[in-house]
């Protein structure tokens, strides 16, 4: 009698091109990276410098929004001294990110986006220090995800590295804010 040993991966593998990135389990991360590359083959438009400008400009828009949000927080009168100092420091990081991104966009021949006049933040819902920190944490978490969504599709490796470096900084902000809120600062082994 013969025992047929089946490895599930080859069976799935044949379909990988149209089922790209099926699962996010830890063991699939490497696969996912491979799938992503497959998915981009043949899509020349996804690989142009033009796209790099688009990606950097979206990130720049998110940074400008974060700067405005920390401004609102700092001026709200809701933050106690040490927390307010932290907010101002984080805002400084976002300003540095925005400067770097704007320069990179210009270098690629693009036009850096300008900040919006009004972000329509939910001011009426920000009534305590915790409200402000929760809101800031949601923007930082979003920023981590936005950069995670930028790193694999930036054509220029140096730009991808810069984006990853910013991602790390924003993840630190997110963790510190969660800690200040009494939440588990690092809830997962992977960010998403």
């Amino acid at each position: 009698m013969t025992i047929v040993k089946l490895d599930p991966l080859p069976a799935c593998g044949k379909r990988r091109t149209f089922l790209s990135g099926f699962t996010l389990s830890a063991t699939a991360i490497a696969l996912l990276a491979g799938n992503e590359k497959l998915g981009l083959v043949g899509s020349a438009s996804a690989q142009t410098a033009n796209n790099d400008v688009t990606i950097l400009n979206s990130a720049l828009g998110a940074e400008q929004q974060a700067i405005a949000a920390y401004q609102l927080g700092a001026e709200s009168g809701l933050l106690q001294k040490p927390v307010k100092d932290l907010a101002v420091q984080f805002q400084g990081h976002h300003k540095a990110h925005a400067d770097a991104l704007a320069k990179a966009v210009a270098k690629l021949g693009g036009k850096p986006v300008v900040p919006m006049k009004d972000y329509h933040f939910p001011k009426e819902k920000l009534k305590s220090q915790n409200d402000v920190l929760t809101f800031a944490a949601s923007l930082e978490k979003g920023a981590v995800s936005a950069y995670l969504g930028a790193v694999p599709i930036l054509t220029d490796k140096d730009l991808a590295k810069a984006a990853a470096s910013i991602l790390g900084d924003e993840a630190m902000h997110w963790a510190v804010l969660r800690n200040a809120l009494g939440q588990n600062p690092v809830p997962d082994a992977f960010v998403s």
Partner: protein
Amino acid sequence: MRLLAAFLVGLLTCAPVLAADGNAERGEEIYTRCKACHALEQNRVGPRHCGLFGRKAGSVPNYQYSAAMKKYGVTWNEETLDKFIENPLKTVPGTKMGYAGVKDPQERADLIAYLKKATSDPKICD
């Protein structure tokens, strides 16, 4: 035998996921990935999401869309959203949503289930 087993494994691990199978609670968590640029109620870096289902792409007032999104022409529903969110830059070449997308079909289904609920919730969206 080998074929049958391979088929079963394929079914178990590779069955397509439909938006109808989405879990809105998990989707709310996935929506945190969008919040650097989007809010339900207000235009931010990206357009507001309230009223998304049944709306034409690129049609929120007072939001500066890319030319590509303005002429994309679809109406947002489960299918069109699934396709866009999987790979925005490929689905709408020239869009200014610079984001790789959500690659996992189950995560997209969850996200879309959440969006369907939240974007028509009268407590959030007026």
